[in-house]
């Protein structure tokens, strides 16, 4: 279990992480999302005790990382942004070193063998790490985090540099690990977070701006009942017709996608479903609807909405962005 309480980190007078709190329970995979420089890696470095925090606390299984660093670190497997590999060692030598470093007590040979199979690095076990491809290096880094079977895994962008097949493998591995581990995973790749994580924490400029399950986030943000439609026919005529629908509040013409085909954004009253009405009215006038899409937001859109401040309509934030 990971518990973060009012965690802050200050570099000089720049606040890199600003008073964030969240919790990840045993058997949960927490996605850590944010644009570059949001403070993801800093937070992860604080959780693992690599950096100290300027305020607040981080607890791993109830042990404060600052108060009892050795006790807390025992339960953490950490894969930093750049895997911490000694390039002059072979994979086997390196994993043996990590095993000794973490003072593991399991049968060495079988434990390391298991990890190598799990991360598919058996075939390179006797090669010098310097000569491995980026994908293999990344997987050796992941293997390193698994040594000693810690119950908390902190993975900073674990699938960077892997090919699509490996990405799928690693994702399913993480999912499998998530059943009996606490996993925090940061990523830029949003579908990955959507596919793997149970819950998502979004941070931006050091501030926590969302902390919810993937479905909830998507639902709460798409409650404004927007529709996007593409209709063939005169722009004015269609707009007129759409506006006649009683629940319709706003019709906005976006662009001409094909000759005489326009895209409209419809905003109906909250709770109203106007899809059938739109169809009937267009059909009556023989105006073909070429596309109709609900505003069920993808994670990508949620992410953009949250991090650009649109969601809260926070003018201060927009001003900051302008700067």
């Amino acid at each position: 279990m990971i518990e973060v309480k009012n965690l802050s980190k200050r570099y000089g007078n720049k606040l890199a992480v600003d008073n964030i709190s969240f919790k990840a329970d045993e058997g949960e995979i927490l996605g850590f999302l944010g644009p570059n420089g949001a403070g993801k890696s800093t937070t992860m470095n604080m959780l693992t005790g690599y950096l100290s925090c300027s305020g607040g606390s981080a607890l791993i299984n109830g042990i404060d990382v600052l108060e009892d660093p050795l006790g807390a670190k025992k339960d953490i497997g950490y894969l930093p942004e750049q895997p911490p590999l000694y390039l002059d060692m072979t994979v086997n030598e390196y994993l043996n070193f990590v095993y000794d470093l973490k003072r593991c007590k399991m049968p060495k040979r079988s434990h390391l063998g298991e990890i190598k199979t799990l991360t598919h690095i058996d075939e390179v076990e006797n090669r010098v790490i310097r000569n491995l491809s980026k994908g293999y290096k990344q997987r050796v880094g992941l293997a390193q985090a698994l040594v000693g079977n810690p119950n908390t895994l902190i993975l900073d962008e674990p699938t960077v540099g892997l090919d699509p097949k490996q990405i799928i493998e690693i994702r399913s591995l993480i999912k499998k690990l998530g059943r009996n581990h606490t996993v925090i995973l940061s990523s830029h790749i949003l579908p990955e977070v959507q596919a793997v994580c149970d819950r998502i924490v979004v941070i931006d400029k050091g501030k926590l701006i969302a902390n919810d399950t993937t479905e909830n986030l998507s639902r709460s943000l798409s409650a404004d009942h927007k529709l996007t439609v593409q209709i063939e026919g005169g722009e004015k005529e269609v707009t007129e017709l759409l506006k006649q629908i009683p629940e319709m509040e706003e019709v906005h013409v976006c662009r001409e996608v094909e000759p005489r085909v326009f895209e409209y954004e419809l905003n109906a009253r909250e709770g109203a479903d106007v899809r059938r009405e739109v169809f009937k009215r267009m059909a009556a006038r023989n105006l073909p609807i070429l596309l109709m899409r609900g505003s069920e937001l993808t994670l990508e859109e949620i992410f953009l909405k949250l991090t650009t401040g649109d969601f809260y309509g926070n003018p201060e934030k927009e001003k900051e962005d302008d700067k």
Partner: protein
Amino acid sequence: MIAITKREIASYFTSPLGYVFLAVFWGFSGLFLQIGCLRTGQSDMSVVFSMMFFIMMILIPILTMRTMADDKRQKTDQLTLTSPVSLFGIVAGKFLAAFAVFFSGVLITLVYALFLSEAVKDMGGEFAWAVFWGNFLGMLLMGGVFISIGIFISNLTENQMIAAIGSIGANIALCMFDVISTYIPNETAKNVINDLSVFYKYSEFTAGIFRLTNIIFFLSLIVIFNFLTMRTTERRRWS
């Protein structure tokens, strides 16, 4: 700590660094033996030890330049610092590894001594083992000081070259105390500076003077610089 020491020693010998260090160390000590003992027919090896001071001053920074700097550049410090190992264990592990390589270099003098003692015995004399052991201990302590300085300076940068040059500079500065003291007219000030001089203390060892205060002086320098290494690492975490 043992894991780190083992890894560090292995890494000295997977790169040319360890071999180069030993080759140069042994080469120069052999040369000084030739010049100082074999040519002149002397059995006292003090000349070898006092000449080796200057070789150590330049060679040990090469040995220690990557200890901390490379860890930071490759980000492998993220592994060691997030493992259940204390900071003391990390620094001590690295110190012991460098010291072990250095120690295997110094061991060659033991071979020289055995060789000379046999030769002296043949001529009916007696080899002064007490003087040799004094010198031997002095060299180990001096090396320990240079290693701890080297690790400390390596910890201040990510660049190995800067670490090496910086440590050589620091070592030279340590010896400059002697030069400075000759220019000082005030007797008390002169004594204070002489008391701080590493080279002066080392030459007492090579002159066959064995003082407990000197041993404690060297040991405290080793402790102080290793402690500073720990503090600067800790400070980086808090900055």
